[in-house]
């Protein structure tokens, strides 16, 4: 049972407002160590340097979209095992299918409540203490 307070999470989204909302929601669950990245490239830099327990990423981003980021992460020796949750919109069903093939751990439909975020994380990491 991982402790929420010890988890190191990376939030990737090109919109600052979404990053901050996700951060606030994570903090409500008890997560304390939250990294942020604006795009896939920044995310990869962080992922290759920092030990991470979870990556939560949007799909639609310039330069490198969420799916490309997922594949890059899965291909990186240091980061390949980090669980990855993809943020999707209401209409992005097909996207989830593709992400599944690429090795995503779970998906999260925007907008999400604190409970749903917790549920999705626990589906991947086990019950949070």
């Amino acid at each position: 049972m991982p402790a929420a307070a010890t988890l190191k999470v990376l939030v990737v989204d090109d919109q600052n407002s979404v990053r901050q909302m996700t951060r606030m929601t994570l903090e409500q669950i008890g997560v304390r160590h939250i990294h942020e990245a604006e795009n896939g490239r920044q995310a990869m830099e962080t992922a290759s340097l920092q030990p991470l327990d979870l990556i939560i990423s949007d799909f639609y981003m310039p330069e490198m979209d969420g799916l490309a980021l997922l594949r890059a992460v899965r291909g990186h020796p240091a980061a390949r095992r980090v669980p990855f949750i993809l943020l999707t919109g209401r209409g992005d069903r097909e996207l989830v299918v593709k992400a599944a093939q690429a090795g995503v751990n779970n998906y999260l439909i925007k907008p999400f409540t604190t409970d749903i975020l917790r549920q999705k994380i626990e589906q991947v990491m086990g019950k949070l203490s």
Partner: protein
Amino acid sequence: MASLDQLKQTFFEECSEALQQIEIGLPDLRDGTASDDTINAVFRSVHSVKGGAGIFGFEDLVKFAHVFETVLDAIRSGRLAATQEIVDTLLQATDVLSDLIGMSRSGQAIPPDHDRECRAALERILHDNSGGEGSEHEPAAPADFEDLDFTPVRADQLDSGESDGGEREYQIVFRPKAELLRKANEPLYILRELGKLGTLDLHVEVDRLPPLADLEADRPYLSWTGTLRTVVTRQQIDEVFEFVRDDCELEITAAVAAADGGPESSAGGPQAETAVPPSAEILPSVGFVPAAAATTSVESAVPVATSPVVNGPAASPPRAPSAKIASAGATTTRIELEKIDRVVNMVGELVIAQAMLGQVVHNLPDDVGGQLVQVLDAVVHHTRELKDSVMSMRAQQVNAVFQRMPRLVRELAAKTGKKAHLEMIGENTEVDRSIIERLGDPLTHIIRNSIDHGIESPEVRAVAGKPEEGTIRLSAEHRGGRIVIEISDDGAGVNSERVLKKARERGLVSPDAALSEDEINNLIFLPGFSTAETVSDISGRGVGMDVVRRNIQDLGGRISLKSERGRGMTIQLALPLTLAVMDGMVVRVGQETYVVPMSAIVECLRPPASDVHNLLGTRGMLRLRGNLLPLAHLCELLDIRSTGTTADERVVIITDTGDGARFGIVVDELCGHRQVVVKSIEESYGAVPGIAGATILGDGRVAFILDIEKLSELTAAPSAVAGAARPAGLARTASETLN
């Protein structure tokens, strides 16, 4: 930690940026010059608005954005062609989106009809395109997609530890496509990775291999089929092909678990390697291909003249992009305006203090001052650089004002039943915020005028042989230390006959005055002038070009007009780059010091007394290169006692009045030309006619900055009545006012 309100603020700022992106991208889409990146950027912008709106609960905005987004998605995936009509609807949708954002931001209730028409138009587009595909209207975001066969993957399942235990056999078929090689992926390394997972027994299919002479290095000809016996999870096998999933034909099917040591496992283990004749390696590369496929083990699989060498296993290519993508373009950051303004103020004070320091040093005896002068030079140099850097922080692209214009043109054209489009050039030209803020109104009015009076109706244009759609060209560029903005149209130009007639009717021009075409055209800048027979509501009542000219002059700029009957009209604005710092000429009148803006000065001279003629009814006329210019004495305008400067020593500053005529201002002495920091006195004293602001000179004294054009107006034209009365409201001397 940000509060919800701050986040909302951030979201609305993001919406502004998103709208800008859309405004930039859609015209390209209309012209057919949009790249995939452009279309994606527009799509992402609408998507971002929708996403954020969902988070903050702006449901109406979400619903509209969703339909908008769906149409854009259809376009970017190629399912819908972006015709001009469709893009025009999208442009309207942008306007509606902008309205909805504005209303959400200000907390207004959104009238239900506001987006109805546009939304219906968008839905029609979708419907026509794909038989009945309506927009989705889920009331709230579901937690999961219905009927989606997705099982969350637990983190620890990624480790090989949690596998079933026991060996499984998988059938593998791997056929790389050209894209795989093009993306610098190497089948050899992929197969090596696969081999690490267990026992791999592959057989290569070479039937597509051409003779060596016909071989193309970037095309794949080989494919592999075989089996993998392994204890690892299916996930881990998939992982090996993650990066190339879309670029190959791949089948991985679990076979029945193979018993150890069964007959299937005998062929192709690592031990078989030595049994393979060396020629099997060489053969494919030389083109001697045996009819039957050769069996090779993974270790000796031959990459035939394929891609550039990729270092390390298949895992590394994804790392290259992340490490090596140079950041294209400048990195930016957000700063609150207040902070910048404070720094600008402080630098202004620093410039003043440094000027005062210079004065003190200047007055020191040489032996003391000598060293200081050198140090001071360095200080001056650095202060100037600091000032330039700080001023550039305040600089904004004129696009901040320009970007509103396309929508304006669209709306006005629609309202007046005319067709017009806007071209913008140089929208990235930078100018200080202080100017940008005050540019909006004049520009809006000029463009309104253009559409209202300039651009003709499509029928009239057709008859005149012009394209039905009028063009308005808005451009900005730096020229000679100023920013020059031009607004030109290909409309009918100024109707000079009508203008002259109206001017005569209103007594603005004497009936028998002979005016040049240019002079007639410039009459429209006179107050109260409007030739519209009916004042259409868009041009407004009583808001004429004179107000525009006043606005521009208040900024220290100039406005001029050129018109060609039937061809069009060009209005040119020349503005200073900033209001905060100004080039000024320090002048002395009696004991008082004033600053005259350099922009107001045409030339300065010290004419001999013989060139000044005292004609009855004037304060003097100066003969200059064949012309007679009226003179005004600053000491009289400001009611200052002139000191004993003789007529010969006095300096005349030639300046323009607003309507192109010139006159000369007489002062006692010119004290030098310098950059002064403009301080506004409006807060303390209100608007004082004739005074544009104040500054602190090097000796610490305050000097007023004169508004020359206003001064000339206040005294009535200097050539008018003799002994012009001093207007009561005119400013007194600096010392009087301050005490």
